[in-house]
């Protein structure tokens, strides 16, 4: 599962990455987690509010640190 966290390096972006890592580890889900920090790359997803989260090419979240339960839902849904 490819997960991209969109953000210019703010504290919320770092917190989002850390939380996704934690949840993925706890759930035993293998993820390929990438940071996207360049403005043009971020805006290519049409995300105005960061952090944004993209899973397998689809924007699933924009603005603020996502909740742990939300991240769990993403990972479980993708595991299918």
């Amino acid at each position, binding site marked *: 599962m490819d997960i991209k966290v969109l953000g210019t390096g703010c504290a919320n972006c770092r917190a989002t990455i850390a939380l996704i890592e934690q949840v993925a580890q706890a759930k035993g889900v293998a993820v390929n987690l990438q940071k996207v920090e360049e*403005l*043009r*790359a971020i*805006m*290519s*997803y*049409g995300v*105005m*509010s960061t952090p944004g989260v993209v899973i397998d090419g689809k924007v699933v979240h924009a603005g603020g640190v996502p909740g742990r339960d939300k991240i769990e839902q993403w990972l479980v849904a993708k595991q299918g």
Partner: protein
Amino acid sequence: MLNEAKEVCPTTTLRMSREGALLVDVRERDEIDNLAFDVPDLLVMPMSEFERRCAELPRDRDLVMVCRVGERSLKATYFLMYLGYTRVANMEGGITKWARKGFPIKGNVSTAIASAATGCCGGATPAKSIGGKSTFAAGENCCAAQPKRAGGCC
């Protein structure tokens, strides 16, 4: 991936404005109350309202996005490009650089001076107010030292 945004300097922006382009100022209203572009055709659309209101912007007219130093307006430019706008450019340097070049502004000159200290040229030397019109000492900052060319950029 989006293409690189088109960036224009204040000189080109002034020319484009005179030729019919619409300037879109994405700064917040309190910033604009302090210091504003003095051009005939300008639309205020702060970043806090941008996503909700950007559909108001025409697609059949040149748009130049402006802000304080050109960062927020670059983001807005890319967002419009994402939405399929093709006639959109970002003014690099924002109102800080615009004011430093002596282009028309309304409002508190000291705001521009304070901004200049953190602007792209960092610590440029804005200077004087003549008859209520703000201007800046030519040759005392890195931008003013550049030759002005028609449509050129510094």
